[in-house]
């Protein structure tokens, strides 16, 4: 073994290192690195611990109740209660996010990155977006409560699906703007100049060149922001996602939009405060929530790796 040149070089490097270090191992360095690894493993270990606890307790309920748990409505008895209404409600909320936040957010990002000059108004908008992204989610709940639930009650129907959906859409908007702007910024200037060079207007440049190249980044960002909305609870509690139970009243479009609703994380919160008999149900609902989120995350990571552009 020691006869190959590479192995000889390695022993050579090793002996030089030992000569410099004086033949001793620097135990402080080893301790320090070990400490860092320990901290990282602790962080990852917490995630593993959490997922283990959730799946060990939640999967049996799902295995036993199966489809019934996913379709049953809310109920006061743990054995009968399911997350059917919650899943439907969460999907409706996502629908609001997709049709409102995505076009508005991407449009705002296009304006900020492609159209805006560095003026006081642009800086104002930029500051506004950054600050909105840092506002605690519960404050968006207060905004929704004051505006959609109280001030616009005639239009939204008060504590209704529309109020919840609009609040969610506003909550996600700054995140969509920031991630889309990042994706647009990553498109090289040369791409735009090539299009301008053949006489395209700015909108034509954006539509035919910038947006297609930025699309993977924009999709990844928007999907992740949707995942964020899917797990969000606090604002929904303030704008009246139902806690307890309610009858399905999805008879007409307007009735649905102005009707009562609930969402998956809201149900988790509600059941978490109930007597211990609901314990297994909470874990089962969390399993559903986490599986959806992991799938969405995996999709985003796949898109990023599959279509990532290196310039």
């Amino acid at each position: 073994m020691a006869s190959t040149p590479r192995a000889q070089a390695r022993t050579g490097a090793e002996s030089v290192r030992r000569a410099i270090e004086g033949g001793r191992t620097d135990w402080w360095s080893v301790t320090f690195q070990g400490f860092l690894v320990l901290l990282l493993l602790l962080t990852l270990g917490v995630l593993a611990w959490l997922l283990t606890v959730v799946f060990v307790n939640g999967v049996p309920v799902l295995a036993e109740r199966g489809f019934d748990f996913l379709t049953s409505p809310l109920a006061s008895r743990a054995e009968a209660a399911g997350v059917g209404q919650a899943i439907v409600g969460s999907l409706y909320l996502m629908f609001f996010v997709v049709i409102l936040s995505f076009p508005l957010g991407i449009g705002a990002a296009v304006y900020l990155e492609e159209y805006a000059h560095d003026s006081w108004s642009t800086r104002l908008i930029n500051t506004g977006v950054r600050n909105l992204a840092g506002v605690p989610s519960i404050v968006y709940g207060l905004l929704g409560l004051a505006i959609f639930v109280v001030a616009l009650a005639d239009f939204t129907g008060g504590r209704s699906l529309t109020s919840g959906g609009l609040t969610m859409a506003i909550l996600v908007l700054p995140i969509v703007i920031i991630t889309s702007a990042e994706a647009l910024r990553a498109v090289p200037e040369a791409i735009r100049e090539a299009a301008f060079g053949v006489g395209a207007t700015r909108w034509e440049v954006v539509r035919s060149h910038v947006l297609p190249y930025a699309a993977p980044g924009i999709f990844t960002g928007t999907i992740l922001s949707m995942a964020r909305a899917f797990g969000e609870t606090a604002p929904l509690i303030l704008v009246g996602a139902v806690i307890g139970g309610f009858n399905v009243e999805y008879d007409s479009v307007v009735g649905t939009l102005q009707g009562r609703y609930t969402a998956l994380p809201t149900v988790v919160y509600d059941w978490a405060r109930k007597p211990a008999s609901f314990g297994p149900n909470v874990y089962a609902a969390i399993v559903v929530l986490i599986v959806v989120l992991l799938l969405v995350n995996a999709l985003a990571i796949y898109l990023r790796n599959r279509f990532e552009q290196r310039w």
Partner: protein
Amino acid sequence: MTASSSAQPPRLSIGDLRGSPARRRKEFGVRLLFLAAASLSIVISFLIILSLAGEAWTFISQVDLPLLIERGWFPRRDLYSVQTIVAGTFTVAAIGMLVAAPLGLGAAIYLSEYASTRVRRTVKPILEILAGIPSVVLGYFALQVISPTIVDPICPGATEGFNMAAAGIGVGILITPLIASVAEDAMYAVPRSLREASYGLGARKRTTSLKIVFPAAISGIVAALILGLSRGIGETMVVSIAAGATGGSLFSVNPCAPGQTMTAAMTALATGSDQVRGATLAFPSLFFVGMLLFIFTLALNLVADRFVRRVRIRY
């Protein structure tokens, strides 16, 4: 777009280059649409401030001010001790930072300075997954698992599992990925030349990481910690589930005791009953607390933003 030089054919004017009026109109319309979308964020900012300030003013002008320094937060009995919920908020956030700062910074230093590309590529998505775990889930985990296994041995007989320590640890777990990712970005942005200069002088990796890279990235690291604190203060669900006091709370900064934060106080008001909009000041008090929370987090975010920008200017 720039004017042509003298060698070009003379008859071509800017008007010829502009294209048809229809195309220009379309261009103008599209631009206006995008501008409207961008301006929406300003409108939302103003709406937040307006809706908070309006009801908060109702509250301040109608409440007996001495009530604000009573030692208890019981809105249904018209006891609005703001110091109780502020103290609870900072107790929970401080415990969260005690957990998240070492974990997050340790992970950041390791990923930025020690880890191979393969480890980075594996660990960073896992941290993103941890960041994506909904806070309700962490709240239940804090109540059901952290409270009996970690907090109970330290605080024997912590009341029925509800305590601020468990909530704080849950909040800490929640903000660890945020701190790790912002701090790691800052350290990763430190130019290689600084590290190489340090190695050239014979410094070890540990010395280089701690004495060269860490101080060079200190702005970003401070920003990471401030952002973490801001997120911790605004965190709602973990505290609502794990810290206990659903209805009201007495003044307490004891981690082993149940407590109320500003955020949890708001959800408690909203879920307690539908009579939040009753005759009492409970409804306006919601917005007063929200206003306080908004001011706290906005101030922290602005400071963090300044620190982040300092890193960006330097490198």
